[in-house]
């Protein structure tokens, strides 16, 4: 009978290609105006500066609980979310500051959420891991690893049932792909042909566990074969590559060809959370990735294209530092949620 040749040894060698007959393809040229390119750069810098400010807020005890920074991964959120329309939907995991900012949430309202203030995007009830702005189709960050994937599939199911011209993008990490929810969700999405892109941020670690200790399969695209879902890898340190892939897959979702899995190779340049010194990685490894910092890289690309001068870059950086400072100031000056709201909204329709 049939013998699969997808053995461990063979596939581990082909790290760059998907095991199931994948090929290297060149990213299609991206047609974006200079303004859009600069806007993307601004967003990336905003996220970086915002995150640095978050780390500071955490150190000062203004932010509590768990706080997961997006430093190093900015290109993914900015590229992918930049490819969405205003009607599309996002569902994300807890490392969610970057998505919120890329989706255009006000940095003050995001920081206020981290500070646990009434003016926060979730009224101070959710905190860092649970940002949401449903008016923008941003259905929230979720803190149970992989638990949000079926929710995203459900939104896509509603879209299909309601015959809307929308797609869903669901962000999660490499670690989440080892969880049962990943499996059940991709299978359900596939068998129902739903308009959803599963965007895996492969940063090679789930918390402190290296990807190869958690699975034989370190190229996440390989996992899509189990659902007959078409999968792609993209360079998650390059916002244009992510933008291009997302745009293309989004169109295909609208054409009824979904779902898709998009793997963005990326790296977090800081610890898993603000509490993590990340002793499980070598300095060398981190330095190597730091040298390819996506902001520096994208700045250079834009400089080479003549879109962004050194001065302009400096000015953007200054503006974003100020924006982050202003966000922190806004948060700090915002009132805490009123104690008498504690029991509000446990139910949409309280009874008895």
């Amino acid at each position: 009978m049939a013998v699969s040749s997808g053995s461990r040894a063979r596939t581990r060698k082909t790290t760059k290609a998907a095991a199931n007959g994948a090929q290297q393809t060149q990213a299609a040229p991206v047609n974006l105006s200079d303004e859009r390119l600069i806007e993307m750069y601004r967003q990336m810098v905003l996220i970086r500066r915002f995150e640095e400010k978050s780390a500071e807020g955490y150190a000062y005890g203004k932010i509590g609980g768990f706080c997961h920074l997006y430093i190093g991964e900015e290109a993914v959120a900015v590229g992918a979310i930049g490819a969405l329309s205003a009607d599309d939907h996002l569902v994300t995991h807890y490392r969610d500051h970057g998505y919120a900012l890329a989706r255009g949430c006000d940095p003050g309202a995001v920081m206020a959420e981290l500070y646990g203030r009434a003016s926060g995007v979730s009224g101070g009830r959710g905190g860092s891991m649970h940002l949401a702005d449903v008016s923008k189709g941003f259905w929230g960050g979720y803190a149970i690893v992989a638990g949000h994937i079926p929710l995203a599939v459900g939104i896509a199911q509603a879209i299909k049932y309601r015959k809307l011209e929308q797609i869903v993008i669901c962000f999660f990490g490499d670690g989440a792909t080892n969880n049962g929810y990943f499996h059940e969700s991709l299978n359900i999405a596939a068998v129902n042909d739903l308009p959803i892109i599963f965007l895996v941020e492969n940063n090679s670690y789930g918390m402190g566990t290296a990807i190869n200790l958690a699975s034989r399969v370190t190229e996440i695209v390989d996992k899509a074969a189990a659902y007959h879902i078409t999968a792609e890898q993209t360079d998650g340190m390059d916002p244009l590559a992510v933008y291009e892939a997302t745009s293309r897959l989004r169109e295909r979702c609208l054409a009824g060809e979904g779902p898709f899995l998009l793997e963005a190779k990326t790296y977090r340049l800081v610890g898993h959370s603000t509490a993590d010194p990340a002793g499980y990685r070598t300095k060398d490894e981190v330095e190597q990735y730091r040298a390819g910092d996506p902001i520096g890289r994208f700045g250079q690309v834009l400089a080479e294209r003549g879109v962004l001068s050194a001065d302009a870059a400096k000015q953007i950086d200054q503006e974003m530092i100020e924006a982050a400072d202003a966000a922190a100031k806004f948060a700090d000056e915002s009132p805490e949620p009123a104690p008498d709201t504690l029991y509000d909204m446990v139910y949409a329709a309280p009874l008895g």
Partner: protein
Amino acid sequence: MAQITYREAIRQALREEMTRDERVYIMGEDIGAYGGSYAVTKGFLDEWGPDRIVDTPIAEGGIVGVATGAAMHGMRPIVEIMSINFSLLAMDQICNHASKLHYMFNGQITVPLVIRTASGWGQLAATHSQTFEAWYASMPGLKVAMPATPYDAKGMLISAIRDPDPVMFIEHSLLYGTRGEVPEGDYTVPLGQAEVKREGTDLTIVTYSRSLMIAQQAADQLAKQDISVEIVDLRSLRPLDTGPAVASVQKTNRALVVEEDWRSCGMGAEIVARLQEEAFDYLDAPIMRIAAVEVPLPYAKNLERLCYPTEQDVVGAALKLLNR
């Protein structure tokens, strides 16, 4: 009024609401071609088509999550989980997701989701004979309904479907065939309201779901000994309406809880705790609990029979409570 079964009452509620509201649809394992493991949705696939009767893979966690997402984005999903025992596989979705979102996201998200599932037993052995209503009843953000009669089943299911919050709607496999009066067409029984199902003066029995049947039979038997039993059917377990039970105990001064869950940490414990909090001075005797025996439920018929409360257990406890 027509006498119909508990199963048929639920079928009526489902069809009427699916007719009334296009956003209502049903998802679950084997609800379509198979017709539902307890035949509740038999024929529905032909009647409504595969968009509204959605057969799913065997993935309770995924299914509940998907339905929750659909509810977030404008649908009114009803998920059938064959057995409450399998809801353990969806526990995280029910408790960490569906029940939390409205509050955690400050009212931005609502989850009008109904999870229909069946408690029950019948030589199904340890992993298929449990009931977990007390767990769900502890969960803020979730509503829990557990009707005992066809009338309540239909009226409460309609309420649940129209409710904007997630509702665990817990049926009972041994009730599906029982009959009762049910009006055709639209009526609702509100969630969160207990009801006195039998008036009496000597003793209060607080109960819900199939145990109501046992309690009624026991009350009939006790009536022959001139003992007058009042029976309060909780119907909803969250929010839990203890008003009628408290009022009843203030009258009878003696109370007994009957349930099919294990005794330790079951609903009975909560009912006892509240009754003694709210009616301490009226109690002439400790409140007793009749519940399932605390073992993993055995398959053998003769052993299983020893595990669940019987009419005789209730009668015995009542007599003991009354020092007779």
